[in-house]
């Protein structure tokens, strides 16, 4: 009888030893490009791990088995090389400023425009969003029109140097979204702007 129990125990041990992990899941938190690291929660069958340090990792070998740990940067690069290499370029944005009550760029912003063009030229299938804004001088409907005119002016400049018009979306937000909040009817050069998002 004792021998039987021993055999059963041995069989259990063997089974446990042979039981291959059902899964090979690995979840890794990376440091953010802006220097800030976010957080990632990994939940499997009611078990949870929260990753909030650079290269914190969780392995899941079967549902409900969440093993927290750490990987090195090199291990992460090795395990995820092709996926990391396929990452699209980070979206970026520019702000160009305008002369008061006009759709004319300031001289400084006019110079910046060529950098915007370079940035767009480097991207595959670029998407560009141009959003115009105004300061709070003048009535709201007037500023709605002015903001859209500013955005369209920038689009026209981009099209002039060969960027396809159908890649550019324009919007005017009027005086609703000031960069620098002011009371109504206050002139503020930093609010006379377009924001160009490139991705």
């Amino acid at each position, binding site marked *: 009888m004792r021998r039987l129990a021993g055999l059963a125990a041995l069989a259990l041990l063997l089974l446990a030893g042979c039981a291959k992990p059902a899964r090979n*899941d690995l*979840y890794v938190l990376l440091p*953010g490009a802006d220097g800030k*690291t*976010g957080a990632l929660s990994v*939940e499997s069958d009611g078990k949870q791990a929260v990753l909030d340090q650079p290269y914190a990792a969780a392995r899941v070998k079967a*549902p409900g088995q969440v093993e927290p740990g750490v990987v090195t940067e090199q291990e992460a690069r090795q395990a*995820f090389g092709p*996926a990391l290499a*396929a990452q699209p370029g980070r979206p970026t944005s520019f702000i160009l400023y305008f002369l008061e009550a006009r759709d004319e760029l300031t001289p400084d912003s006019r110079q910046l425009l060529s950098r915007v063009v370079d940035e767009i030229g480097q991207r595959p299938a670029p998407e560009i969003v141009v959003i115009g804004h105004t300061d709070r001088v003048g009535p709201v409907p007037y500023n709605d029109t002015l903001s859209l005119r500013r955005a369209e002016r920038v689009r026209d400049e981009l099209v002039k140097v060969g960027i396809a018009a159908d890649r550019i979306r324009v919007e005017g937000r009027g005086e609703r979204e000031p960069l620098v909040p002011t009371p109504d009817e206050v002139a503020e050069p930093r609010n006379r702007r377009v924001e160009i998002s490139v991705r």
Partner: protein
Amino acid sequence: MARLIVGLAAAVVVTAMVPAPLPAQAQEAGHVKLTRGLVEIERAGQKALAAIGAAVQAGDVVTTGADGSVGITFLDNSLLSAGPNSVLAIDRFAFDSTTHQGSFESSLRKGTLAVVSGKLAKQSPEAMKVKTPAAVLGVRGTEFLVRTGDPKD
């Protein structure tokens, strides 16, 4: 002339009363920016090769071959890129570009995935989820990596 005006007015009223068409289930969610090797997008049961610039919609399943990888930029600036032998389903994508609200759910059925979250995850920690067959990932404004599959994969 009066009849014409009445007719026009009626047409305007009727037009105004017709409810705006519901947003189609398959809305544009992002665009393919980079491909290597074999990359396909499956939509409504049809598989097509994914070209650079191709639109990705909610409901699409993106697959890569043994030599394949793909990078997709989404409308909220999330970046998802998958390595070889991967199956990535875009389950749900909604993004309001003014309020930055909406939701983004995707499933990596197998393979590897690198993620940089965008405006949705920044606006709300509940907005972005990535699922695998074994786990659900909650995203709080972050960059991360996902590998899922059998050990033999």
